[in-house]
């Protein structure tokens, strides 16, 4: 008898990530210099690791409170107040999650009703669209434009809003473009958000990694705190990707609902990672500053190298990605990335995997040692010279 598929229709309809396909291709090759990695090249600072050893030795191996250890939530609350001037009640308005990814999932599941639309800014992080779908919402993408340096504008929101629009996901600074929005730009967005009564999921995982202006947290904008879920975590600025630890803060009603879902689906974030994060919050600033400085130098290096070789590359204000245009070469993003990999063993990510407006661009992570970056730029220059 023919067996029917056990896979759900909804799961089946999800598009596999374009990154996955490219990863398979790159993983088969040897001596690849990868600018395709979406995580720091630093190992977690030793004091955080050492602190987790201590916690293990003390026997902290059990579950924590669903929302996360209260000590950690208090530290997060203090940290957000000190760094970005946003004030959250550690008891009721903070939840510790398994990476910022889970925080996004929880926030969507806690707020979106079937059929409601969620605006997703593209080029953007690959998980937003599928996560909205899985939460029962309808993702509606907004394509930002290279001529605006891929910054979201109030007009673009206006064009995408319908009576069914519930929320918008903002990623600031942005992965993959590195675009960072100023306070003024955020205030302009806030006006439209208020006008259409939208909820904002503000993914600020790269907040600490801003290089020109001081980062403005979206809930710090007047009137926005009550309609914003702030999402962040320890992966990027604290170099803790593998620990899987993030958090969300927001209005009590939403956070409590997120905790409710969290307790049934996850129990709590890993205890050992929470202890490491406690040290990161208390004493991590010098480490973060050191890494930030190093990323900034490498950003300067990669941007000037691209412009020198004739690939137009605006100066990204944050994160650790450069997003140069490869249109001069006459290749599509996918062709460029594949040919570059085959010919010069340099891996970059085709811009179109982050949304259709990313076509004509590639994402290059500069979270790579200067030595490797230098060699990658030499190889890319050779590759580009053959084509322009």
């Amino acid at each position, binding site marked *: 008898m023919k067996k029917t598929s056990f896979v759900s229709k909804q799961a089946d309809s999800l598009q596999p990530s374009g990154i996955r396909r*490219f*990863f398979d291709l790159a*993983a088969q090759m040897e001596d690849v210099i*990868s600018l395709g990695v979406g995580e720091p*090249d630093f190992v977690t600072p030793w004091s955080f690791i050492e602190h987790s050893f201590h916690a293990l030795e003390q026997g902290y191996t059990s579950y924590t409170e669903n929302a996360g250890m209260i000590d950690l939530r208090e530290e997060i609350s203090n940290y957000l107040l000190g760094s970005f001037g946003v004030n959250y009640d550690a008891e009721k308005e903070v939840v510790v999650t398994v990476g910022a990814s889970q925080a996004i999932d929880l926030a969507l599941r806690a707020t979106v009703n079937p059929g409601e639309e969620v605006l997703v800014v593209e080029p953007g992080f*690959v*998980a937003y669209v599928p996560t909205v779908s899985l939460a029962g919402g309808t993702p509606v993408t907004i394509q930002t434009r290279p001529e605006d340096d891929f910054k979201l504008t109030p007009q673009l929101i206006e064009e995408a809003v319908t009576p069914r629009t519930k929320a918008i996901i903002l990623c600031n600074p942005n992965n993959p473009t590195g675009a960072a929005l100023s306070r003024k730009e955020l205030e302009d967005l806030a006006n439209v958000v208020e006008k259409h009564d939208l909820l904002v999921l503000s993914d600020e995982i790269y907040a600490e990694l801003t290089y020109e202006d001081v980062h403005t947290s979206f809930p710090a904008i007047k009137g926005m705190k009550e309609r914003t879920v702030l999402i962040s975590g320890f992966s990027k600025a604290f170099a803790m990707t593998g620990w899987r630890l993030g958090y969300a803060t927001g209005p009590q009603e939403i956070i409590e609902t997120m905790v409710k879902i969290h307790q049934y689906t996850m129990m709590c974030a890993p205890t050992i990672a929470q202890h490491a994060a406690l040290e990161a919050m208390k004493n991590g600033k010098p480490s973060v500053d050191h890494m930030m400085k190093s990323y900034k*130098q490498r950003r300067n290096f990669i941007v000037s190298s691209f412009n020198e070789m004739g690939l137009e590359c605006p100066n990204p204000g944050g994160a650790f990605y450069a997003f140069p245009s490869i249109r001069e070469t006459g290749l599509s993003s996918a062709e460029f990335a594949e040919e570059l990999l085959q010919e010069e063993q340099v891996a970059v990510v085709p811009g179109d995997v982050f949304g259709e407006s990313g076509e004509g661009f590639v994402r290059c992570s500069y979270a790579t040692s200067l030595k490797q970056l230098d060699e990658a730029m030499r190889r890319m220059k050779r590759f580009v010279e053959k084509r322009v």
Partner: protein
Amino acid sequence: MQEQEVEILQLIEKNANMEPSKIAKLMNITEDEVRQLLRGLEEKKAILGYSTLIDWAKVIQQEEVTAMVDVKVQPARGVGFDKVAERIYRFPEVKAVYLMSGAYDLSVSVEGKTMMEIGRFISEKLSALDSVLSTTTHFILKRYKHDGIILEDDDDNDKRMVVSP
């Protein structure tokens, strides 16, 4: 200006060999500005020299021996410890001299080809100085980290996946 001086020093502190063109790109300034900054720092003796960290054992069979010597001295009137320290640091065998708080006065690092050679230097030269009251010699058996650099650290391979979101 001072911020740039600090930044350039931090860049070359661990790699004096870094080309001015690369420094220029990293700091987003011109190569001329890099040279000017370096010249300024050399002139005011913020940069005292450009040395190379060498693992001699990789090239020649014989390994250098290093001893840290705790020295108790009799300070002299008027010049305190400085005059004694100078008498000691002028010897080419001496690589470093520090005035210490605690149980002894000067910490002296001495390099030689063999333990015998160092022993001879200490008994014939160092201990023989009038103002030296006593010495305690500690030989270095193994270097794990030197001047902020972890030695024998082969664990610098990238453990990350090739491509990730």
